């Protein structure tokens, strides 16, 4: 359980998400890694070049700073501390609570990401040089997919989780695994109540695992 919680630390080091744009004129695709505290181009000038391309259709520049970059690191830190504490306490139901919290925050984050993408793809400047419309005659939206691949004009936009997210998923999986392991141990221990003390030690070792 503790290891699971500590895996969240990877979020500080690795990008959580990535959006890549492929197009014939970019033999090396351009793209952006999303960290919990920043946006970073896959190559040094990618964000600048995405902004240059997007300004023609009226899309806003990708901001350097958003409020989420303040909040996410704090929430993550909180969850790590909470997870580690849970591990030490060793109550199996607390593991589930932690997992539940992660799912909740994750969903909120994904929803936030969706809102931002929606805004980014729909809120276009009135003065845009190029205005496309979709088949219904509505202004075309350039929203990248939440997850998956999508073709936008001559670009193929790919939106997928990255190392940070996978580490987080692994951490969450570990917390569930710890819950079931713990439950099994617990049922064993009820049959052998006289060895409760040793069980506690064993349980501790499982927690560490």
């Amino acid at each position, binding site marked *: 359980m503790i290891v699971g919680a500590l895996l969240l630390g990877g979020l500080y080091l690795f990008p959580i998400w990535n959006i890549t744009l492929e197009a014939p004129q970019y033999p090396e695709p351009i793209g952006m890694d999303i960290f919990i505290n920043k946006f970073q181009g896959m190559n*040094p*000038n990618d964000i*600048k*070049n995405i902004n*240059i391309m997007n300004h*023609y259709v009226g899309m806003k520049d990708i901001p350097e700073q958003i409020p989420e970059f303040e909040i996410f690191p704090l929430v993550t830190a909180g969850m790590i501390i909470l997870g580690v504490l849970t591990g030490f306490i060793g109550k199996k139901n607390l593991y589930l609570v932690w997992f539940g919290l992660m799912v909740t925050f994750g969903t909120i984050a994904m929803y936030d990401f969706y809102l931002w993408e929606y805004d980014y793809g729909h809120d276009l400047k009135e003065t845009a*040089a*190029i205005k496309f419309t979709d088949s219904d005659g509505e202004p075309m939206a350039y929203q990248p997919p939440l997850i998956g691949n999508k073709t936008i004009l001559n670009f193929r936009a790919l939106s997928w989780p990255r190392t940070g997210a996978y580490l987080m998923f692994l951490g969450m999986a570990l917390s569930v695994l710890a819950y079931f392991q713990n439950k099994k141990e617990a049922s064993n221990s009820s049959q052998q109540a006289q060895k409760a003390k040793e069980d506690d030690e064993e349980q501790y070792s499982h927690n560490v695992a």
Partner: protein
Amino acid sequence: MQIRNQIICCICAVTMLFIVGSCSQQGQTGALNSSLADRSYVAPGEHDEFYAFISGGYSGQLSIYGLPSGRLFRVVPVFSVDAEKGYGFNEETKPLLNTSFGSIPWDDSHHPDLSQTNGKVDGRWCFINGNNTPRIARISLSSFETEEIIEIPNSAGNHSSAFVTENTEYVVAGTRFAVPVPQRDMPIEEYKGNFKGALSFIKVDQETGRMNLEFQVMMPGFNFDLAHPGRKKSHGWMFFSTYNTEEASTLLEVNASQNDKDFIAAINWKKAEELIANGQFETIKTEYAHNVYEESTHMATSTMKKEVKVLDPAKYPGLVYFLPTPKSPHGCDVDPSGEYIIGSGKLAASMTAHSFTKMLDAIENKKFDGDAYGIPVINYEDVVSGVVQQAGLGPLHTEFDNDGNAYTTFFISSEVVKWKVGTWEVLDRAPTYYSVGHLMIPGGNSQEPFGKYLVAMNKITKDRYLPTGPELAHSAQLYDISGDKMELILDFPTIGEPHYAAGCPADLIKPNQTKIYELEKNNHPYAAKSDKEARIERNGNEVHVYMTMIRSHFTPDNLEGIKVGDKVYFHVTNLEQDYDVPHGISIIGANTSELLIMPGQTETFIWEPKKEGVWPFYCTDFCSALHQEMQGYIRVSGRNSNTPLKWSLDGD
């Protein structure tokens, strides 16, 4: 039963694979089983296997081709101005063309050679000589820009240049014309015995590539034609071919063809280094320009140098020896082993191969046949190792493959002849269309040639292409030399007059390409690295415009307060940081070329408005979908008007 069937099937299939495999392997070695077109075909989007650096001759430039496709990728401006690229027109590159004679917009570029490490081509730099006003240029193979040009003093007709030694210790530059040194007013007929032939050794800094004229060997007044470095065992020596050892100054076609034999001069440059280190040299006054383009400032500077160290070979035994070589040798080419020096007497019917081992032995045992101006002449018989008999008419230049074969061009009989080094027997001959000058095998001037293709550079084109009036492109021809027989697989037109070429595998160069110039590292004193830095400054009638460009606008794009009689410097920075997004700029009535500015780069042009009015400027490179909108206006007011300086973009 079933199993046995399967086994038979397998055996058949495997056998078939072998057959197909063996045949396609033959194809690679040049057998006649793939179509000729296939062998020079590079599919759309695919890359060529080799770079070819082909001199532009009287265009003064260096052209870059791919082999085997023969496609032209770029013409690098070197010695001649190039309005297309702003080279020699913008303020940054003007100093590159400075000489002790002032700025010169043209030269005749002849012999490109590639830098080497341990005798192998290393893909760092290309050197090329300017023949008319003697100069050597260095071109970066990361940026494919001319980074440095050094003038060669005491020299005239810088022809036996720009050949590099095994570790690029030196680039050599030998004079074609003998001239008075120092230059002075004297009767031409007193040439003999008085004119000199300077052979220059230019040291190359291994980190930066910076060149320095280290010393000159002041030879008798012969004409020096071509040169090649010793390699492996002969490393430390440089060989120069000579003609006009008669020292004639008139009707050379007759008077310089009298001696049965001219010389190949063998210079021991390691010995020269010792002499220089020991202070055994003369310093003579002279004047020559040294021009360096600095990538971080995007700007060239020109410095005038005042003296040069000179070695007199008559004074220092062991520095120079002459190897007698029949009939005005043109090429003097050293085989990959460094043992043989091949002299191609351009009027001779045969070719002479000197042996380096025999040369050392002759020197040791003083097997000399007198001397010329105090320089020992080695006995012909004691240095010649073999003769390629009656191979053709008018041999010019020899290159080598990696299998011990040599390939020589014959101008008069219009052919390339393949022969065996060591046995001197002719193995194959292929006609050229027409009258071939030089030839090139990638890595052919190194220890390790890549003997797959041979490019023949022809002097005469006639009917090879669709006609274009009296003036025709010179023609190059590509031969597949991977098999026993040379096979012509492609004709392609070239720029100017290719005199010589160098080539190497593309993999040596591709990974080191400059794609953009980083804005953060742009140290141009007049750079505006963001729109916020864009501005106009006036200093008397000198006006400096700090302008930026990015898809798809200039900042500023409305300028006011310029007056007739002003000298307006447009310092324009391309803010793009994206590969292959250059922008250009020019303004109506500008008496100069456009600027073509690469991402992250700053360039400057001067505009001196002569008429009041509102004058437009625009982007000259189709940069983006809104390229046509990338434009602006400058208001020019009268000489004595009070229009204030004002600049804006979108009213801000």
